[in-house]
Structure formats: C-alpha cells, structure tokens
C-alpha cells in the first residue's frame, strides 16, 4: 500500500520532501507518502493501485476521475492528495458491500449502460453523490446534474435509465 510511483518521486528536488497523507480510502485508514503537486487521482491510481478511478482529461472536463470525498462527489484530478489529508474517500472499488454489488452497479449492467466502460466508475460515483444530494427529482434534473460525466460511447440514455431505476427506489423510472 505504501509504494510510490517512482516517476512521481524522481521529479522532486531535494528540498521539497514528500509528506505523509493519512486518509480513509474505501473504509480503510491509509497513509501514503506524496509530493505536494501529486493529484488525488494520481495518488489513488499510482500509489494505492486503485485503478478503477480513471484519468480521462486530467483537467476537470470529463468526470472520469469522480470519487466521493466526505460523501460529496468531486473530481480527483483537480485536487491535490495533500489537500485531502484527514478526509474519507470512496472510489468505485469501495461502493459494493463485500460481494453484493451497489444497486447502481447492478442497474448499469441491467440497462446496458456502458460500452467501453471507461466513464463508468466516474458515472456511478457521481450518481451516488447525486442521490445523496437529493436535488434531482425529474429525469431532466437528473440529466442536468449528471452532465459533468461525459460518455464518449454515447451510452447516456441508458445511463440515465439505470439511475432512474435506482433513484427513490425506482419510483420515477
């Protein structure tokens, strides 16, 4: 758990030392040594091997890197790992309960809500965050509040179907 991508380490000048970031990732308290400019996304993928978190654009434009931080959906590419010391992070690897898929994971399968699957981890984390926010009532509102997650394969219609099937127990599907 404590290995650091050697490339990240190599770029450090002598005088800036990595710092220890301690946070809870997928319910497990974890410490990583990271340099200040390492994004949360790179720390999760390269240091913690949580490669379910995807790097799409690395600039906040696609939503592939969406994770939950203290229950809120955020973009892990536009925040630094050091900024999240003390936080509770959930990635796609942590949404299922042991062998039981998260209802949204099952719904994505049932509704054929992906093709290549690259956007899927971000879509599911984002949808979990959206349901917790409780601001999306109608399908139009769900579409608007999921617009931060792009799908290049164009599975959007089925993605919204999958979310509607789970949201509010599927009462609006």
């Amino acid at each position, binding site marked *: 758990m404590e290995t650091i991508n050697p490339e990240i380490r190599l770029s450090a000048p002598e005088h800036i030392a990595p*710092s220890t970031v301690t946070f809870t990732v997928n319910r497990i308290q974890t410490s990583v040594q990271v340099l*200040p400019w390492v994004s949360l996304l790179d720390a999760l993928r390269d240091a913690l091997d949580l490669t379910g978190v995807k790097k799409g654009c690395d600039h*906040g434009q696609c*939503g592939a890197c*969406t994770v939950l931080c203290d229950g809120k959906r955020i*973009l892990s590419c536009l925040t630094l790992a*050091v900024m999240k010391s003390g936080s509770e992070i959930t990635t796609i690897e942590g949404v299922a309960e042991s062998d039981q898929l998260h209802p949204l994971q099952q719904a994505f399968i049932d509704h054929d809500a992906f093709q290549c699957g690259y956007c899927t981890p971000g879509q599911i984390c984002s949808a979990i965050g959206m349901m917790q926010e409780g601001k999306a009532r109608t399908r139009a509102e769900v579409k608007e509040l999921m617009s*931060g997650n792009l799908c290049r394969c164009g599975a959007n219609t089925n993605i919204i179907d999958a979310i509607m099937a789970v949201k509010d127990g599927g009462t609006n599907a």
Partner: protein
Amino acid sequence: MHNFFYTRANSIEEAIDGIRVDSAAKYVAGGTNLIDLLKYNIERADVLVDVNHVEVFPDAEQMADGCLRLSAFMTNADTAYHPLVEKKYPLLSEAILAGASAQIRNMATNGGNLLQRTRCYYFYDPAMPCNKREPGSGCPALNGYNRMMAILGTSSECIAVFPSDMCVALAALGAVVEVEGPSGQRHIPFSEFHRLPGRTPHLDNNLEAGEIITAICLPPEGFSRNYAYLKLRDRNSYAFALVSVALALEMDGECIREARIALGGVAHKPWRVPDAEDFLQGREATPGNFAAAADLILQGAQAFEHNGFKIELAKKAIVRAGKMALHPETHLPGAQPPSFENL
C-alpha cells in the same frame, strides 16, 4: 506541473501571513481553476496556501442591516442550495447551478469563483503570445479565432471574456466583496471588483497583493419574485456561456419599479448599464421595452471576425430573460432557454 510547497492555513491571519512571507505564494481553495492552470504551466506558485481549513462560522449569516453575508470559503454548491439563498436570492442559486458541473460546484468556492481566469484559447496556449499571460507579448485573438471573445469594453490589447456565471448574478444583485489584507479590511462594490483590460490586461481585478476575499455580502433586496438567469452556449450543459443574462425586476402592478440587467460572456467583467435600467423604471414590462433596453446595453458593442453573432444574441437573450423573469415557472434546470409556446 512544476514543484511547490504546500501549507494549510487555519485562520485568515495565517493565510495572509503565508502569502506575505513569499511573494510567489498563492492561495488555493477548490483548486478547480488554479490546479488546472498549474498543470498547463500558465500559473506558477512556489507555495500553495490551502484556505479550505480556515475557521469560519457560520457559512451564511443574516446581518442586522438586512444583508446576507456569505463566506468566501463556502462551496458554490452549498451556496446555491443554502435555504436563505434559495428563498431570498434565487437568481444567485440559478446562476451558480448553470455553471460548471455538480462535481466542480462541490469543490469550487465563492472566493475562487470571483478570481477564475479567462477561458481565452490563446491565454491557455503557452506557445502563443498573450498580453494577459505575458504583458507586452501581443493579443492573437484580435485577428485570430475570436468566436468566444468580448464585444464590449475591449481594448487593442485584450478581448478576453470573464467566464463566471455566479458573478453575473452578483453584479445584478449589487453584491459587495469583503477582503482582508496586510493593510486591513475593505469592502469593494461588485462593479468595482473586476477590471476592463485597457492597457493592463494582466490584471483581472482590483485585489491587491496578499489580499484575501473573506466574504460576499448580498444587499437586502433579493428580487425573489421576478428574476431570471438565461445561459446560451454551444451545448446545453457543462459549457461556458456565449452570452448569459441575469435579469431582476421589482414590479409595481404592470410597471417596473426597479430593473437590474447584467450580461455574462460579452466582456472582461459582468456588464451592467445603469442607463438601460433607468430607462425601464416606470415602464411596462413588455418585450418592446426590454428590446429598447437591450439596444441601450449593446450600444457601442464592437464585434470581431467571428463573434458578430453575439450582439444580436445578447439583445434577444435580454428580451427572453425579461419574459422569463415575469414567469419564473418557465425556468429550466441549468438556465437553459425555455420555450414560451404555452404562455
């Protein structure tokens, strides 16, 4: 991204001190603009002073003079969904919710929103000259691809647009920005916060070195009955405005007692023309009167090769926003343009 130190500030004083000791230090809040620009090597910092842990209580405070004081460190999402903002300043809620994405709004702060940099493609391309990035190097947008650029308040040195949605509503509401710095506290009226490019396009606003935004104060009048935010863009969500309009009315029967109109996507700052607002005062809220006000607002607009469409678009958007303000029930998620077929 180049290398920098990181430090956390737990109070406003610590934050200001953190910047004072190093002139190449920068505050980082949500990081959604700064970290992006650091990755492109467009912004540089030796030290990032994280202001997300500055103790503020409460996030939104109803003041004795009727103003609502919003913390600069509160997120855009928490602001838009705050019960007092939703109830008294729905224009601000709608404008915030028309910007960026839900994830970005969960990260972005009110202070950071005011200080976001332009989205001009040449500013974002270090291989190109840009007077905003490197003063004196030139402005390729003037004769380049300038579809997104400004039509009002431009100078021969910069035609960039300020991209915020939230700030268009804050301009219309007449907010006041509270800042604190090495030489104390001051309050800046919103219309004086951002600058026009003139001969100093590298300066976006009138904040002084080391100053930190601590709060945004909303005046008592929230225009909660008749208001509209309309955002027009290339796709209906998660895109910056080509033109946006924040419009608020206080009605007296059929007549307008007070009007506020601010435009986004057309200038280096949210654009307000007091003459146009005065013109509407005492007149009926008709499409014709809104069109006449729109002509006053767009007076002196200057288009470049690819953005001539913005002048007509802005005028029509003002008329439509006027109708939307009279019928808040027509508003759509994300400030998308509603149809008026059923009215």
